[in-house]
């Protein structure tokens, strides 16, 4: 029987492979390289803008390493990632897409992103331009969009408010497809910066030569508006087979609109919206 006199147990069994530096004062990694595919990043300060750069993170050393590149952007810019860690074989250069975004209202002008890895540092200039203005009256353009789920990377929610109604561009990030096959409801929502008067919602569902609306488009959905913090259903569409359904209703002052997708003409699969537009 074991007693309490197990004081001599030498059970410090740190099974972690001793590949890292053995001392706390670790030396700075050398032989790493940092560069970008552009000399300057142009940024438009709206949600969903597709912009950024390709980080090139290389190892010129003779042995494989695991290395980290730390990225920081000037406020209020945001990066799709602030750390890139990777295995880097000798002579290998990793290429990683980094998205750069700025919130609406960001002052146009010059900003910078700084990247550090080992003893290397790269400063990448950023030029923030003017925010575009929608001239068609579509309230869903250039405002934040969210969804119950997104089939990434090819079918993001942003694709449903990008101004592209063409179903032939399907599967090229210009339309939204949820990622929960067979499960309904799904939803897609745009949120306004300030309350807007809305009396019409246009929904373009998938309708290409290969994927006609009557077979693959959205069949049943509710149009909902958020008024004074609570959601209300303002219209119900059922048994749709058309590529475009324009829903009009008594105008409300809404902070957000939402399409609650209930069924697809394909059956128990996915919700697919090529473009969602909202008007007064």
């Amino acid at each position, binding site marked *: 029987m*074991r007693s309490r006199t197990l004081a001599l147990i030498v059970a410090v069994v740190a099974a972690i*492979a001793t590949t*890292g530096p053995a001392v706390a004062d670790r030396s700075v990694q050398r032989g790493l390289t940092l560069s970008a595919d552009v000399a300057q990043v142009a940024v438009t300060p709206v949600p969903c803008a597709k912009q950024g750069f390709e980080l090139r993170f290389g190892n010129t050393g003779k042995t494989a390493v695991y290395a980290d590149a730390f990225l920081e952007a000037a406020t209020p810019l945001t990066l799709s*990632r602030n750390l890139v860690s990777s295995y880097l074989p000798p002579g290998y250069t990793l290429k990683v*897409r980094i998205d750069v975004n700025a919130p609406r209202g960001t002052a146009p002008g010059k900003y910078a992103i700084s990247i550090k890895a080992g003893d290397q540092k790269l400063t990448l200039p950023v030029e923030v331009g003017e925010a575009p203005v929608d001239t068609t009256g579509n309230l869903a353009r250039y405002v934040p969009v969210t969804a*119950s789920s997104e089939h990434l990377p090819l079918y*993001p929610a942003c694709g449903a408010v990008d101004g592209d109604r063409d179903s032939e561009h399907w599967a090229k990030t210009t339309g939204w497809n949820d*990622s929960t096959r067979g499960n309904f409801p799904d939803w897609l929502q745009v949120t306004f910066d300030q309350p807007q008067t809305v009396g019409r919602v246009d929904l373009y569902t998938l309708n290409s030569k290969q994927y006609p609306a009557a077979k693959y488009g959205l069949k049943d959905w509710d149009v909902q508006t958020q008024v004074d913090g609570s959601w209300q259903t303002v219209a119900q569409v059922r048994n749709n087979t058309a590529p475009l359904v324009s829903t009009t209703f008594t105008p409300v002052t809404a902070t957000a609109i939402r399409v609650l997708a209930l069924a697809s003409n394909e059956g128990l699969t996915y919700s697919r919206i090529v473009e969602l537009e909202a008007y007064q």
Partner: protein
Amino acid sequence: MTEDLRPAVRLARRRFLTLTGAATAVAFGTNLPGTAIGTGGSGGLTGNPFTLGVASGDPLPDAVVIWTRLAPKPYEPLGGAPYKEVRVEWQVATDEHFRRIVRSGRATARPEFAHSVHVDVRGLEAGRHYWYRFRVDRYLSPTGRTRTAPAPGQRGGQFTLGVSSCQSWPDGYYTAQRHLANEDVDAVVFLGDYVYEYGIAAAGGLRNVTTPVPNQFRTEADTLDRYRLQYALYKSDPDLQAAHQNAPWITTWDDHEVQDNYAGTVSKSNAPVEDFLVRRANAYRAYWEHLPLRGPAPQGPNYLLYRRFTFGRVAELSVLDTRQYRSDQAAGDGWKVDSDARRDPARVLAGQQQTQWFLQGLNRSRATWNVLANQVIMSRMDLDPTPVDLYNMDAWDGYGAEQKVMQDGLAANRHRNPVVLTGDVHAGYALDMKRDFADPDSQTYGVEIVPTSFSSGGNGVPVSANGQKFLDGNPHLKFVDERRGYSVLRFDNSQLRVDYKVVPYVDKPGAPVSTVRSFVVEAGNPGLEER
């Protein structure tokens, strides 16, 4: 920020570090407000670092791996920990109150390994429960319960496994894991797809969360930092943590720990091999960092994951890796009719080395039950009920030559009671493995148990249209249920009992669990008998 170390506290800490056994229990036990033991060697951690829970795994008769990862802010770069080594103390006791501590020590959490801690605790007694915990200065981890394997050669007794696979986080709540945490199992076998590589929407898919999933989760996992984030999200789930806390896990991977349906060095998008192997290296490293596996950690794109466990004379468990070594899927993947490519002997799934390792082990085994932890369906599975055959090119059917080697090997060892456990398909299946799958009267040499998925696939249905096609086209398929859950397998010298457990929904928390079907297999008489 490093907190100041008060002199009295420093003294207390020194006492802690120099004492072991019962005295150590006292030191851990004083972890109460106002009696904090202070910092020092903590690397300047601020905030509770045990946000991802604790785990144990790979039990041997005298050893088990205990695991944790320090991540005060799990969704931040480096888990919110400083880029420094951090000292972690650990204890293993024979009781949950740590009155009788039998092993203790210190480990180093290194930033190169995401501050994960893997301690291979040796010198334990066979076939008994232990409790374990970690400490970093004043932060004490939750307590985990684990269990060593029965002594080699031990006859008699019962051995119980909980088995499942495929736990896509955005596909639903981990209700099944919560129920598994309440089962009295000796170990959990996880058959792959522990994480999915896909980007995750702010609403968290079917979970429809009120706190948005942060922006850094939108992109697909490809680099090491990004795979680590995915594990951090999954392992933050309290239900998954509870399942790990209850029993040791024995895990293998399938495709989604790297990328959907990858095959060896071939990616789904046919990326240059050089690039894909870097991705694979990143994914393999993150996998090791987050699971209770023995060292050494993977270095680069290769990692030996297949391994074997013996549970007395009752059962032996061989854990396969059918992703790392496989040839590209035939005929462009998907469900395809029969073809020469499907049966090409040059194409492998497990690979010759692993296949021979398995079959030689099976030949030498002295255990009553010989269990295979496998990813994709090994029995013939025809999706077309008409005379036309339609096979899954990603499963063993898509690698017909090696499938035959395995099936022949199992059939030759029919007296060793082969039991194949399979994941991948997000469905509960029970199959008799037949000498000739086209002839229901031919000899049955083993059983294949597919215990369904924990969450992948969402709520699911009892039997879908495809599920019915499988039933119609495969007379050796005895049961289909396409809801979420797990199976409990109870082995003893004379029989194996399998309970299929499912929850009615996972898009909301709190579903009850029920046993929807049970089978018994008699030792020496392979084949499923419904009970």
